[in-house]
């Protein structure tokens, strides 16, 4: 492709530094398992992982591998495949710091980051233990309607976000269809790293049908072509979740040793395939 923005997966992962605030989308939006694998290979540690608004397998492998220091999410779930074993184990062991949130709180805080606002108000939360545990959230009396308590959340501006999308063009414009969460990730974050299924020969911003569903290249700091880069998670319009792989993951990772064996295999498999 010859464009500066197009790199290999390892070069993308090298832009995710230890201790950084890393943002990722929910399992169905387009998770880059391909970049995640390279991040783990690079030996990054102490990540503050923030999920928009939940995570599943990606949070599992990052936590299980010991790369996460702080987890900010409204849930970690493998859906019907069962509880997330390494997440639960890390919670029990106290090895990760938890910032439990709600989905709308994460959306709102990312939107505040996207808009360059210092904070944003949000309904709900008051009276929950979520709020009680979050020293970084506040409650004020609505200045427009005294006697109306409302929560204020500080903006989230991740250092970097990482995801997988169906299509990009040579200039770095990324087509996301209806997965608008990916645009929110890209705009709220200071850097944005993307793996894609395929590369379009046409400039996507010049396609009147697609242009409105494009992340402009101005937000994209690095791109790699990685067909199947979301697997075993789903990618809309491309493939479903690989149920066999997910089930195998859940049963193997019920123990630390089982997870380690899975991880070694997964990392080396990736190396062969790359």
């Amino acid at each position, binding site marked *: 492709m010859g464009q500066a923005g197009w790199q290999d997966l390892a070069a993308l992962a090298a832009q995710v530094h230890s201790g950084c605030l890393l943002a990722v989308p929910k399992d169905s939006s387009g998770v880059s398992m391909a970049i995640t694998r390279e991040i783990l290979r690079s030996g990054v540690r102490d990540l503050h992982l923030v999920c928009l608004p939940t995570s599943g397998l990606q949070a599992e492998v990052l936590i299980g591998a010991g790369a996460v220091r702080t987890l900010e999410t409204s849930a970690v779930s493998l859906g019907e495949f069962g509880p997330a074993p390494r997440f639960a184990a890390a919670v029990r*062991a106290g090895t990760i710091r938890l910032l439990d949130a*709600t989905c709308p709180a994460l959306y709102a805080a990312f939107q505040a980051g996207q808009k360059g606002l210092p904070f944003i108000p949000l309904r709900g939360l008051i009276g*929950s*233990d979520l709020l009680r545990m979050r020293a970084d959230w506040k409650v004020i009396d609505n200045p427009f309607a005294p006697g109306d308590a409302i929560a204020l959340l500080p903006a989230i501006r991740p250092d970097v976000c990482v995801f997988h999308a169906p299509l990009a063009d040579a200039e770095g414009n990324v087509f996301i269809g209806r997965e608008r969460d990916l645009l929110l990730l890209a705009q709220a974050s200071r850097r944005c790293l993307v793996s894609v299924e395929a590369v379009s020969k046409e400039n996507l911003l010049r396609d009147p049908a697609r242009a409105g569903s494009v992340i402009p290249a101005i937000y994209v700091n690095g791109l790699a072509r990685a067909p199947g880069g979301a697997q075993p998670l789903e990618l809309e319009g491309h493939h479903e979740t690989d149920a066999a792989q997910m089930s195998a993951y859940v049963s193997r990772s019920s123990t630390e040793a089982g997870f380690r064996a899975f991880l070694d295999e997964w990392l080396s498999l990736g190396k062969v395939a790359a």
Partner: protein
Amino acid sequence: MWLLGRRLRFPAQPPCSPGELRLSVLGSRQNNFFTSGGVELFDLAAQGRIDAFFLGGGQIDGQANINLVGTGNYPRTSVRWPGSFGSAYLYFLVPRVILFREEHTRRVFVPRVDFISAPGVSAPEVHRPGGPRALVTSRALFSFDAQAAGFTLQSVHPGHSAAEVRENTGFAYREALPTVVTPPPDRFALALLRGPVREELSEVYPRFAAVLAAEELTAEPGPP
């Protein structure tokens, strides 16, 4: 794993709608009519455009507080569940929230939840147009009164008793006397549940839909 149904309400019936009720299963693509990402559902709720939804809980107490986080001392809960999702928001804003939990035991229905993901009732200074209206379990149906901050046993499902419900519920509640038996679904409703509803569910919860199908083979349909 929880289910969310919603009806979108407009000042007048949206003229472009094919029917009056709109229902969505969270996570479904076939029934996804949103184009603004995951935030759209929550924005609609705060605007008052959603009438009802279904919410489960790992623990539920007598004040309808729900816990989706885990048991034991937070943050190092001994059992950790996925997390609170949108509960501490939709529970406040959607007028009719139906709590559901199939397992009806004292480990689920506790005197006081270990972690309040979302409170059942709120102080007067908290904007709360919504909240719990009912709780459905495998044994019974309860209603919830926000003023009294408590449940009332409305009916007991066929084959179960009020005493059994009492024995398996860890929180106090009122009982409407005499005990009413929950009317079973009629054949039309049952056909709907086992037909189109299960079909739509299977997109997002294929395993759950398969379990339902298997149970059906061993169960006799219709009223006893």
